[in-house]
């Protein structure tokens, strides 16, 4: 038992891992074997065997905790005394926490717009060129890197050295400034632009996603549509505006929605690059700080609740758009 909970050496860890997988396989085998034995099992029993484990986990690990958290949001920092909407009021009344909300909006608006624009632009520019595969891979690659890794990459780009005469910078961004004859700039310290520089990191990661989805949508546009447009004398930028963009509208909405939801929840970049200091914190990060660093459960839960509330309208909009496009068909 001790081994299962406290594996120290590499060998022990791999042993525990294999035990965990075997245990899982054994349990699933027993369940499936049990419903498969009797001939003609009723549908509901088979359904329980197949979907039951996943549903149980979801109810235990997502539905129930979410309800508890929503409930906790109305209690004080220890979770014992009911305080009503004090936590929410506190978030909007404290300047620092209000800043967190503003920053979150900046993330949720800037990331989708810029990443989608760049992704679309790039997808169109490299479409049908000889280097398309390589060109796309270059943009797509940051998606494989952890946000912690990406943060280190960009901390290095933004690195600042005070000008002590020789003005050697090791961060590329500041070196470029120096080469251009400007003073080096503290990218991560100076408000409010430091938030923008953090957002750039996320855009750098997500543009590949936008590009891939949009590129696939562009390639799926039927040729007869472009043919017809050309016969009508439409070409170039106009073709793009009046044929391509409307045709990929559903894909555009999906990309914008996904990116908006993604930027609402982004945590790693802020955590690793500034730790949320210097006015760069966002709701997802502030939640971690309050709930797990400051030990204020109520405030943490309230922040998680805000996160949830912010996601809902974005999803609602997406569902609405989907219904509209379904009606059109």
């Amino acid at each position, binding site marked *: 038992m001790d081994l299962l909970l406290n594996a120290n050496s590499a060998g022990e860890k791999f042993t525990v891992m294999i035990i965990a997988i075997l245990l899982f396989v054994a349990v699933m085998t027993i369940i499936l074997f049990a419903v498969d034995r009797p001939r003609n099992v009723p549908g509901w029993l088979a359904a329980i065997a197949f979907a039951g484990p996943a549903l149980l986990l*979801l109810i235990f690990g997502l539905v129930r905790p*979410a309800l508890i958290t929503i409930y906790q949001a109305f209690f004080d920092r220890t979770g014992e005394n009911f305080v009503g909407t004090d936590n929410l009021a506190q978030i909007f009344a404290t300047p620092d926490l209000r800043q967190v909300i503003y920053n979150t909006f900046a993330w949720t608006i800037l990331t989708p717009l810029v990443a989608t624009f760049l992704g679309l632009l790039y997808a169109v520019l490299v479409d049908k*060129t000889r280097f398309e595969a390589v060109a796309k891979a270059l943009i797509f690659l940051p998606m494989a890197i952890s946000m912690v890794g990406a943060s280190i990459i960009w901390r290095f780009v933004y690195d600042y050295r005070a000008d002590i005469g020789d003005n050697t910078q090791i961060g590329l961004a500041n070196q470029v400034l120096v080469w251009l004859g400007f003073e080096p700039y503290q990218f991560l310290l100076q408000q409010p632009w430091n938030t923008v520089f953090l957002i750039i990191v996320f855009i750098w990661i997500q543009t590949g996603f936008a590009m891939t989805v949009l590129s696939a949508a562009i390639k799926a546009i039927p040729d007869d549509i472009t043919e017809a447009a050309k016969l009508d004398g439409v070409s170039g930028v106009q073709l793009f505006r009046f044929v391509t963009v409307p045709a990929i509208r559903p894909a555009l909405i999906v990309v914008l929605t996904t990116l908006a939801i993604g930027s609402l929840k982004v945590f790693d970049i802020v955590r690793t690059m500034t730790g949320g200091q210097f006015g760069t914190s966002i709701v997802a990060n502030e939640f971690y700080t309050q709930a797990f660093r400051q030990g204020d459960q109520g405030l*943490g839960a309230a922040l998680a609740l805000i996160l*949830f509330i912010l996601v809902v309208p974005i999803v609602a909009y997406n*569902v609405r758009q989907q219904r509209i496009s379904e009606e059109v068909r």
Partner: protein
Amino acid sequence: MSTTDRSRGARVSDAAGAGVTGPAGTLAAEGAENADDRVGTPVRRSRAATFRKSMSNPWASLIAIVIAVLWTIPTAGLLISSIRPEFSVKNTGWWTWFTNPEFTANNYNLVLYGSEGFATVFINTIVITLPAVVIPITLALLAAYAFAWIEFPGRDWIFVGVFALQIVPIQIALIPLLTDYVNWGIAGSFWPVWLSHSIFALPLAVFLLHNFMKDIPRSLIEAAMVDGAGHVKIFFQVLLPVLTPAIAAFAVFQFLWVWNDLLVALIFGSAQNTAPLTVRLANIVGTRGSEWHLLTAGAFISMIVPLVVFIALQRFFVRGLLAGSVKG
């Protein structure tokens, strides 16, 4: 086929069967990957020609090149720095490496076997990742099968419920789960990490795999039923072989997500024995943020496995991406 229909392959919350394996979706997914093969085919030529005429001016190429370079340089700088000696990394820009090339494996040595002990956290990451990929995919496959091919009361409503859980930010579940793990006495071991990753992956996994599964022709399953096969047999012998590419697509997805995760690891698995690469790396940033020789080497170690997997299995990853977009 209308335009809207065609682009459905790339839509996220398109419930039911409009996933990637439909005719439009396959075209889209393949198109992203195999663009070069298709340029020459007659069907595509006209549009290709249009684009070439309209977009292939020097300015367009210049913009594309600028974007590509901007996207590549930051990572290139990291890799070059990680093989430079400590003194050089800290005192000159990595671009001077081109005029003054120096190589050292010392940074990697220090990070892997020195006080940072990345060799250990590397193992932790592997131990965390494998079950956290295998378990949710198996559970999701079984559940997706139930939602797609077993009739039971309330099926559609429950499926919509599972789908809707995608919009719940995982932050909202963390505090109560941690309390449970502590009460059960399993906090600080690998179990909470495996369990949590499995839970958080399920909504998207069930949804995506269900889409893939719905696209399998009904006749295939009915034929098996006529032969007297039960659900278990149909699942393992008929569906699983057909679904292998789809499973691979989601597996790459889940692998990258778990390997690169910081939040779950930080809250449930940051104990000495279980901390993965991301947690250790984030710690070094916090405590020794200017030790660039360690940070660059450490970051590259954390990137190497996902990069290899990603490059090798990119095809599948794109399929997963187009089937349902990223984890919400």
